């Protein structure tokens, strides 16, 4: 990719001060998203996938949260360290965000049309009437029937799927370059999920925007993503194209996630394989590779020194000692494991 990425995150680190101590929620995350492309960020709850995007949107409550280091550039513009006013220029205008629960993410005492129009009024030199007309057009674009009437209704008069469409219209109001979707379909039932994902894809094709899709549903990843970042304990452990991740995965955690995914053709398997154990406590992450206590392939070095990133293919890399040139080959690996 020679063109400039829409979003480029480098070595981002986020910490939270709590009574129990310092929680290192994000520990050096890097990824790129290009125009017209979808990056899926996957991982278990608490792995830092949401905190990463909230940090670059400036949505982390500070205190207790703190961005310790790293950079995040949107179209080349550094986002980390912007003040409130500068951040408000970017938020809603160049990057939009939709959230997990559409039922609680809209103001219950404000008409949805006004909530959409508000974004336009704030970011553009536009009259309230013109903004309201544009809001209706945006609702039509997300295929909400009778948009003009619906714009005058309140959120409680909508279903969950319809509200997520409203959220999408709202985040698209200023045609942002980047759409961040934080588990956009988790709270919706499956048929509605499908419609919402379809809508996002369609709008992406038309506007050529970049999408960061946070999810823990590998089915959604397979359907939507061009690239995938697999996160574990605040780090990206594997990064590659969707085919790399599904067919040539190199990290044992990615393997574990795929094993845990239901499959239409489960030959001879009655039960899904779960990854044993639970994610590490980020108050004190284990030394070495954070995944080693749960890893079936863990070696002696894994609990001492964390692995660096090893290239696996073109724009595909993973952080695992097994990829080191001195690592035992898969065939003899069992003998050396310990």
């Amino acid at each position, binding site marked *: 990719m020679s063109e400039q990425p829409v979003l480029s995150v480098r070595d981002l680190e986020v910490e939270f001060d709590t009574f129990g101590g310092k929680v290192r929620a994000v520990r050096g995350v890097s990824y790129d998203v290009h125009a017209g492309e979808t990056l899926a960020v996957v991982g278990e709850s608490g792995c830092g996938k949401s905190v990463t995007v909230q940090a670059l949107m400036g*949505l982390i409550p500070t205190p207790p949260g703190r961005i310790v280091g790293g950079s995040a550039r949107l179209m080349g513009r550094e986002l980390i360290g912007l003040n409130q006013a500068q951040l*408000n220029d970017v*938020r809603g*205008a160049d990057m939009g965000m939709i959230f997990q629960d559409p039922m609680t993410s809209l103001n219950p005492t404000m008409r949805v049309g006004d909530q959409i129009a508000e974004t336009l009024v704030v970011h553009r030199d536009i009259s309230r009437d013109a903004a309201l007309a544009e809001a209706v057009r945006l609702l039509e674009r997300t295929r909400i029937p009778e948009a003009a009437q619906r714009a005058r209704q309140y959120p409680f008069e909508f279903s969950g799927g319809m509200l997520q469409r409203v959220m999408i219209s709202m985040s698209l109001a200023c045609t942002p370059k980047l759409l961040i979707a934080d588990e956009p379909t988790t709270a919706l039932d499956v048929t509605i999920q499908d419609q919402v994902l379809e809508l996002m894809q369609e709008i992406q094709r038309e506007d050529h925007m970049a999408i960061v899709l946070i999810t823990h549903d590998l089915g959604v990843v397979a359907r939507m993503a061009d690239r995938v970042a697999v996160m574990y304990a605040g780090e990206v452990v594997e990064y590659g194209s969707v085919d790399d991740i599904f067919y040539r995965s190199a990290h044992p955690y990615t393997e574990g996630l795929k094993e845990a995914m239901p499959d239409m053709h489960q030959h001879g398997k009655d039960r899904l394989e779960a990854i044993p154990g639970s994610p590490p406590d980020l108050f004190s992450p284990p030394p070495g590779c954070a995944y080693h206590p749960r890893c079936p392939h863990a070696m002696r070095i894994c609990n001492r020194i964390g692995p660096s990133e090893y290239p696996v293919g073109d724009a595909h890399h993973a952080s695992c000692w097994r990829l080191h040139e001195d690592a035992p080959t898969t065939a003899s690996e069992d003998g050396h494991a310990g």
Partner: protein
Amino acid sequence: MGAYIARRLLSGVITIWFIATATFFGMHAVPGDPLLNDKAVTPEIRANLERAYGLDKPVPQQYLIFLKNMLQGDFGISFTQQNRRVNDIIAEHFPVSATLGVLALLFAAGGGIMFGALTALFRSRMPDYLIMFLVIIAVSVPSFVFAGLGQLAILRLNSLLGFSLLPVAGWGTVAHMLVPALVLGLGTMAYLTRLMRSSMLEVAETDYIRTARAKGLTPRRIFFRHQLRNAILPVVTVLGPAIAAITTGGFVVELVFAIPGLGRYFVQAVQQLDYTVIMGTTVFYGAFLVLMVIAVDIVYGFIDPRIQVSKSLS
């Protein structure tokens, strides 16, 4: 909406009937003699008085007579104040209490919402600690102490200025009303401040405030357009009971500031077992409160679009 209001009014009438009945029999159960007088009362005079007030009849019959008169809006003549009709007492003194109460409520609601919002805005900083400290004092100190302190403060202020800026007691002009209304509303203001503060902080944590920030709205816009309106809802809910607290609590303040309000008659009547005045003032206050609570519920519907009168309710 019309059907809803009619339904609420009907249940209000039942409430008032219940209040009237309970008060009537409770009052008659209290030991004591309403006709007791420091003048010598001969048995003949006493019999005449009893006949005049209908006390010679059995209590259930008295009750029926009372109900019949009440439905015609007549509460009879006071026992202790010669030839003064209860309706006249209410008509003369209630406007005074109501004016004081409305002003006190304005202070309480306005101050409570404003200070509550301020504390939330300056959470864990100096203005928050200061206001919350004062709130605890205002909640714990009874109103007669504040009434006295208020008068003392007026005195000091007037002597400092060298002329009488505010009157210490009495009734008549707006200047007479300010300090008593403030004293009367203080406890409710403190309560509403606490309620507003916790409500503001709760709203600040909600998903839709996060959405508003993600839209790039200024903190000022988020505060006024998203946070405030949603935070006021619980405060509006308690305004009905707050009106009750203020109107019934007015007695002490009226006494200290020598305000000719209804509260004094309300309390005196009970002390003197003035049957007709007790019934008149109690039923009147009861009706007033029922109306206020209904009014608050209707206003609530305008602020929160989710509260609508559904078909099944009306």
